[in-house]
């Protein structure tokens, strides 16, 4: 302490600003926004929500494929499939003649997505034959696959398969039938690699080539692009997902906007009036809560009915609003009751504030945070309900796409073409996830009680 001088012991000359605390004071919303920004998960979710809105609203303007258009050359195509197809002549029926005169079960000509021509020699002891098609070898369990043709006459020894062919490998089995027409264990299998083809007329129809194009049979062209593949009816997945997003999000965001608003009005009226009216109103809310939710969603949906040509979005919206408002109403009422007892409200009242002033100046602004958080959490719930109902066939009416109904269709072909289930499911999951995380972030940012917790 050698640097201390007698001169240091003069009285301290204070500047006038010494007293104030230097930290700037923040308003409630500024403070919340800073907290939200510090929460990485919430911010990523916020970006995700914005991206989803872009996808839904602007996507269809960029990717203008009609979600109802069927591309029969590309049915249930996973994304990234090679789109090139050879042009072949139009289909002409086959008379079963084998120009090469081979023997045993065999393929005639090049197997294409247009037609696969099979020929065989009659199997020993057969009373006719049945033709099966499978994606896997038959194996020990005699899993032949799906039947594609049946001939009770041994004299017919050929079959043309034109059913829903996709490029790839098939295992065709010619199975001998017993005298009573039942399937035996005598069979022969042919492995077939099917090539994607199209015809000039089809290509013209789809606008893939100009009418005056000089493409010849044997040339190869690219079929229309489907970035996310196609569904079981050959419809473009990407455009359907966009259309489905419009349906799912308009229900998922629209319904909560309505019922949260209704809940706020109901709850604040009950909370503000209090007494008998409050008792009665909240008892009614209790009854609505007690209704078995999904059963009543279905019941209301039936009761409102879906007329021909309607999408079924409106009945779902109404049913959601009718059943989901009480949670918000209870919450807001609780908040109002709490705020009413606060000293600052009583002080304001003593200073002569009118009812309107109390409601709009003190009560509603102070419930706004809670309401915003509730809204964010109700959105994923509503999206789930839509998906759930569409999944069990009680949602929007086909052909209107929604993520739930697309999942419902996709689950049927889950084992062979999983992308038809995975894409809508991923969209539902990401949307729900984003709103949930955003809600968490908002709650942590807005709710003072939770502030010290995480």
């Amino acid at each position, binding site marked *: 302490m050698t640097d201390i001088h007698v001169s240091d012991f003069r009285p301290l000359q204070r500047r006038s600003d010494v007293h104030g605390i230097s930290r700037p004071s923040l308003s409630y919303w500024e403070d919340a926004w800073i907290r939200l920004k510090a929460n990485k998960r919430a911010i990523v979710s916020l970006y995700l929500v914005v991206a989803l809105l872009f996808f839904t609203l602007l996507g269809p303007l960029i990717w203008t494929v009609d979600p109802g258009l069927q591309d029969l050359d590309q049915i249930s195509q996973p994304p990234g499939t090679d789109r090139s197809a050879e042009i072949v002549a139009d289909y002409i029926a086959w008379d079963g003649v084998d120009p090469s005169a081979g023997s045993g079960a065999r393929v005639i000509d090049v197997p294409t997505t247009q037609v696969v021509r099979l020929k065989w020699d009659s199997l020993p002891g057969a009373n006719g034959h049945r033709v099966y098609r499978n994606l896997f070898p038959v194996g020990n369990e005699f899993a032949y696959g799906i039947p594609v043709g049946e001939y009770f006459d041994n004299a017919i020894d050929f079959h043309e398969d034109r059913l829903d062919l996709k490029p790839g490998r098939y295992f065709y089995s010619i199975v001998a039938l017993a005298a009573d027409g039942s399937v035996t264990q005598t069979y022969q299998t042919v492995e077939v690699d099917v090539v994607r083809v199209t015809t000039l007329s089809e290509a013209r129809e789809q606008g893939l080539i100009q009418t005056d194009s000089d493409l010849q049979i044997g040339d190869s062209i690219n079929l229309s692009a489907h970035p996310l593949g196609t569904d079981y009816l050959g419809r473009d997945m990407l455009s359907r997902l966009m259309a489905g997003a419009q349906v799912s999000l308009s229900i998922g965001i629209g319904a909560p906007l309505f019922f949260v608003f209704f809940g706020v009005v109901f709850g604040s009226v009950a909370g503000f009036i209090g007494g008998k009216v409050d008792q009665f109103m909240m008892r009614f809310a*209790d*009854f609505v809560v*007690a*209704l*078995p*939710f*999904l*059963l*009543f969603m*279905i*019941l*209301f949906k*039936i*009761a409102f*009915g879906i007329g021909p040509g309607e999408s079924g979005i409106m009945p779902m919206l109404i049913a959601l609003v009718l059943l989901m408002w009480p949670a918000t109403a209870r919450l807001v009422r609780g908040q109002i009751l709490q705020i009413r007892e606060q000293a600052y409200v009583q002080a304001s009242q003593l200073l002569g504030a009118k009812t309107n002033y109390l409601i709009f100046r003190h009560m509603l602004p102070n419930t706004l945070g809670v309401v915003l958080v509730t809204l964010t959490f109700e959105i*994923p719930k509503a999206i*789930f309900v839509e*998906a*759930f109902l569409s*999944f*069990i*066939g*009680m949602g929007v009416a086909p052909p209107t796409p929604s993520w*739930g109904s697309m*999942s*419902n269709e996709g*689950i049927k072909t*889950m*084992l062979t073409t*999983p992308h038809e*289930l995975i894409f809508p*499911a991923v969209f*539902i*999951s*990401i949307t*729900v*996830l984003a709103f*949930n*995380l955003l809600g968490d972030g908002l709650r942590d940012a807005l709710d003072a009680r*939770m502030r*010290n*917790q*995480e």
Partner: protein
Amino acid sequence: MGWYIFKRLIQGIITVWFIATATFFAMHSVPGDPLLNDRAVTPAIRANLEAKYGLDQPLLTQYVIYLGNLSRGDFGISFTQENRQVNDIIREHFPVSAILGILAVLFAALGGVLWGSLTALYRNRLPDYIIMFLVILGISVPSFVVAALSQYSLVTLNNAVGQTLLPVAGWGTILHMLVPAMVLGLSTMAYLTRLMRSSMLEVINSDFVRTAKSKGLPPARIFTRHQVRNAILPVITVLGPQIAVITTGGFVVEIVFAIPGLGRFFVEAVQQLDYTVIMGTTVFYGAFLVFMVIVVDVLYGFIDPRVRLK
């Protein structure tokens, strides 16, 4: 406590009446005559129903008859299955749903408490991050996707092993119940885990845990007697409504796993517009849920002395 239970029961009965009334008027506002627009109604059933519900009578009379039947526990006759009592249908299919539901609730509650406590104790460390990530997944992935995926993995697993380790669908043995119950309870478990975690964090920071520490109690004793015991209370309060979520969520699982439960039957009835079955099942489910909530609340009273003694 006795008075409390009595009061709750009376409230419950009023609630069931409300549910029955809402069901009745919802079904009667379905456009068209319920008997005309259905192809499967035979003259025999038609006669039965008209007599029973007085379908030719004014709406209010029908309502009174309907309530009278309900109070005797009679849900009526199926529209589509000739002369089959709805009561029989419920008796046959509900136990399946109930067993599935109970297993799912147990799975969800035990899992939720366990994982929730773990994440709170390991807050902001690796186990917390991993479990909470899975929890977020469990909340965000729709149940039908989980059901489909788990069935797909079962198929793959069985194929890989070369024998049926766990049945892919159907009902019968405990093995049939395992995977569907887990799928059914998953989202509830995720929800309860979150709830338990935040409740546990609150308790960990509470004054009485600080007191317990200042008494020099061993951590295991603090955990069981002071932390879990208090943190579990909010979990129990939501268990009643969660049972509702689980039982109605059973539809999807029952459909995907081909389980002959009431949920699947209900969906079929809805698709066939079998009015009495729809009404009967709704009221029955509603009553079941209302009383489950009461049971859970009474149970809660035995755990939380503040409720029990008031």
